[in-house]
């Protein structure tokens, strides 16, 4: 058996989503997973606080969500593919999230791309 990953591996400044992260972020990801259904997207848009409470988010997790702090949600165990569903509801596309992770504006981020029209 060859170990595939160093303990608490970080690659290119990023955490690797492993079982430890997944357990830590379970509530966040379960909430985001529900957003694959239209009625849950409506429920989230209608009353975000009640929606977060229904998925037992902790106070810290709720605060990250209220601030639309995507790097913070990732650090709390959010998985990027589940956060993308949250992005749809909160009108934060992947590239907006990415700009935030890079500490740039959306425009700054786009200016670094080879073909910024391929959004």
């Amino acid at each position: 058996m060859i170990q595939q990953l160093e303990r608490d591996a970080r690659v290119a400044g990023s955490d690797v989503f492993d079982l430890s992260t997944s357990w830590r972020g379970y509530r966040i990801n379960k909430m985001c997973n529900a957003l694959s259904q239209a009625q849950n997207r409506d429920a989230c848009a209608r009353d975000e606080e009640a929606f977060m409470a229904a998925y037992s988010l902790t106070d810290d997790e709720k605060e990250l969500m209220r601030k639309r702090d995507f790097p913070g949600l990732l650090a709390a165990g959010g998985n990027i593919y589940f956060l993308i569903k949250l992005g749809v509801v909160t009108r934060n596309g992947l590239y907006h999230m990415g700009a935030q992770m890079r500490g740039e504006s959306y425009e700054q981020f786009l200016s670094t791309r080879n073909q910024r029209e391929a959004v």
Partner: protein
Amino acid sequence: MGRIVAGIRTSHVPSIGGAYDRGRDSTPAWKPLFDAYVPVRAWLKEMEVDAAIMVYNDHGADFFFDKYPTFAVGCAESYAIADEGFGVRPLPVIPGDLAFSQHLCRSLVYDEFDITICQEMRVEHGFLVPMHLCFEHGESWPVPTIPIAVNVLQHPLPTARRCHRLGQAIGRAVASFERDIRVAIIGTGGMSHQLTGTEFGAMHTENDLDFLERIESDPDSLLQLTHQQLMEKFGVEGIELIMWLVMRGALPDNVRRIHRNDYAPMTTGMGLITLQGDA
């Protein structure tokens, strides 16, 4: 007995789906990507394929971390289009081939692959983008397709070698099928991308080109790479490339390359390579 006659590796970037649905395939930003698939579709038609196997990963559309399989194989008459969080895309339901799926599942399990067998499975961009890039559709799709989902989201992921071995086992399963079907296998995902952290959007075009070269001429050199090494070369999310190895394992050793393309407009290396296995 079945035969794998065509192998395709392609990215499955979701924005390709968005561009497709909005009819933007001829804009300057998207034309270089979409044009590369025109000859692929013609070639696949010529190859008279009876069934396709799509090796892809679910990105949270139909699987959640409550019960997360390493390998999941579709075993149904058809597969619905999943809602990924923005409604259901206007695409026809995917026809399956039930008897072929059942044979594949039996063969893989008896061959010591511990698959999760899915009699209900909804498919998403990881599956659908390659589908509409490779096949035309009106009201329906021209070939039945079997989904095989690989865990590339939640480490521990299957090793590169295990993915290649899964491909070899798929090859054995196809060869032992009772019907003389011609099968295409499509390995999707990648190439280099990083969707988290301060290096969001980083691409590694040199490494992508090297990978395209090796998967054609020297796949063995890729099998010993650890996930750590692969992520260092291709970014954290670029680990999806292990799915190309499933497809490579299913093909005979000697293959002829037919098409090749790469394009990197935004945040992901969009690679394409097709191989013909009847050489």
